[in-house]
């Protein structure tokens, strides 16, 4: 059997795949965080919890309404996004004028409420959700076997990240958003409804977390802690990529997923912490992150 660094090649490919899968979720979540941070200047601590809500909504749509995965793929992000809109209109909107840290504390509280609430209702072990029939099974790529659903997740993540990047960097709406980030007062004076833009941006970023939750539902166990397990890593990814940089968030999301996957091969316990070590090193070399500008 072909070996690299004393490890069998199929094992390395397997870990690479796992790394890219995890990286897909890091990328989607950190992109949403970066978009929200860019315009609202709020670190959304509830992002992981909303990701979890997305997964539960997916499960709920099937269990209570018999709507399958494909419906959920469309409906769950809309539902989570609408919930985000409600949060923004009722709570988050009230703290824009305050110190930036209050946003963090507020969303931290929201995360606790969501996580505790779902734990009360579903227990900490959660529920299970199966991949749709069309995406079950395995394909032989010659050098390894790829479960179809995992391939689909990677494909979907790249599509979502690419589309979002295009929307924000290349369209008129995106230009408006970036302008409002740079100078909200000026953009408002041109007749743009900036508060509405902010609310919709928050809903969009949160909807992305919901979408990631849908994709995660068949892959991981759907449980109340699935978001909090992930969110600290995602924060590190955002810092590494550079706060507010969307391209940076996407690239470092995938890169760190892969680094984590390979760490798991060579030093398994280290996979839990490698992201934070990378973050410390990056910050020493580049204080604003890889793609960020110093605030």
């Amino acid at each position, binding site marked *: 059997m072909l070996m690299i660094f004393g490890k069998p090649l199929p094992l390395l490919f397997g870990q690479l795949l796992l790394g890219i899968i995890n990286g897909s979720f890091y990328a989607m979540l950190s992109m949403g965080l970066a978009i929200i941070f860019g315009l609202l200047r709020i670190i959304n601590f509830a992002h992981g919890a909303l990701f979890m809500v997305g997964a539960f909504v997916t499960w709920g749509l099937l269990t209570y309404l018999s709507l399958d995965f494909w419906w959920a793929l469309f409906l769950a992000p809309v539902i989570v996004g609408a919930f985000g809109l409600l949060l923004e209109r009722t709570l988050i909107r009230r703290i824009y004028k305050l110190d930036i840290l209050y946003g963090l*504390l507020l969303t931290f509280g929201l995360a*606790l*409420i969501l996580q*505790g609430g779902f734990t009360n209702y579903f227990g900490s072990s959660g529920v299970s959700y199966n991949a749709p029939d069309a995406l079950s099974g395995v394909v032989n790529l010659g050098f390894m076997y790829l479960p179809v659903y995992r391939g689909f997740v990677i494909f979907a993540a790249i599509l979502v990240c690419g589309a979002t990047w295009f929307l924000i960097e290349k369209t008129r709406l995106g230009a408006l958003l970036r302008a409002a980030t740079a100078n909200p007062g000026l953009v408002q004076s041109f007749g743009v409804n900036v508060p509405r833009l902010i609310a919709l941006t928050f809903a969009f970023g949160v909807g992305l977390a919901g979408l990631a939750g849908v994709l995660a539902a068949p892959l991981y166990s759907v449980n109340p802690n699935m978001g909090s397990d992930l969110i600290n890593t995602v924060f590190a990814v*955002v810092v590494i990529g550079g706060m507010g940089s969307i391209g940076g968030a996407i690239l470092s999301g995938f890169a760190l997923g892969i680094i984590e996957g390979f760490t798991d091969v060579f030093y398994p316990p280290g996979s839990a912490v490698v992201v*934070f070590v990378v973050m*410390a090193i990056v910050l*020493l070399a580049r204080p604003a992150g890889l793609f960020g500008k110093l605030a």
Partner: protein
Amino acid sequence: MNFGFTKAQSIGLMLMVLAIILAPFFFYPIVVMQVMCYAVFAMGANLLMGSLGLLSLGQAAYFGLGGYITGYLVQSLGLTPELGIIAAALGAGALGTLFGWLVIRRQTIYFAMITLALAEIVYFFAVQATRFTGGENGIQGIPRGALFGVLPLANDRAMYALVAVIFLACFLFVHRIMHSPFGQVVKAIRENEPRAISLGYKVEQYKWVAFILAAMLAGIAGGTKAMVMGIETLSDVGSAASGLVVLMVLLGGIGTIFGPLIGALIVVAMQYYLAPFGAWVIVIQGVIFVACVLVFRRGVIGELAVRLKTAL
């Protein structure tokens, strides 16, 4: 020595000392000791949040490290309690020196997220270094030993006296520090950082020292709590403990001198009285966070101070 207490603060201090003396007659002493330990922990966080506007989401790293150091030294090496707690302060201070050097140039949310990530690294070591920390089991059955090798602490009353002395010493120390020239510069930095820089103060060094002090207070708190409870586990070094101490500071009143104690009291009481409700404790903590941010930003002591038109 002039501690610079105002009249209202002096009255508050007397009431506090009275409460500490009387509390063990009305409440379970272990719980009151726990409150005082958490209050010391919160004093450190308050030093960062209140005096510098720096929110650290990784204070549990120093709290947990302090607990592990005291637990390990007292149990495995047979050191006396006071040496164990001093070692906890020094160990946590050393870690704070290193981490502080990494984070102190960062502002607000960057600072918060980096402290959070660094604490994750410490948590990882706590899980992995099973010889030192006991991993998932933690360090169990930490003996209280004898203070200076002569005064046995196994009795809750003796332990209570020690914890009360440690708490009051830390309380006076923090207050004294904030009224020293160092503390005045720290306040100036919070009010107007560019101005402080232009006046020639090395702002980063001041922040760094404050960060180290906060870490040392967390270490003392963690070490003392490990002695009181006789056990040190991963829950003290995890991110939940970091969130809890922020909640205490927020509830008590950011930047107030009595806030940390009141915050610790409320949070510990909540944990005891709400324990039968399981995961609802988390929901209630979340609701308190949200409520504090939206309508109760001054906290209990802060509100009281405004009502009484004085600083507390």
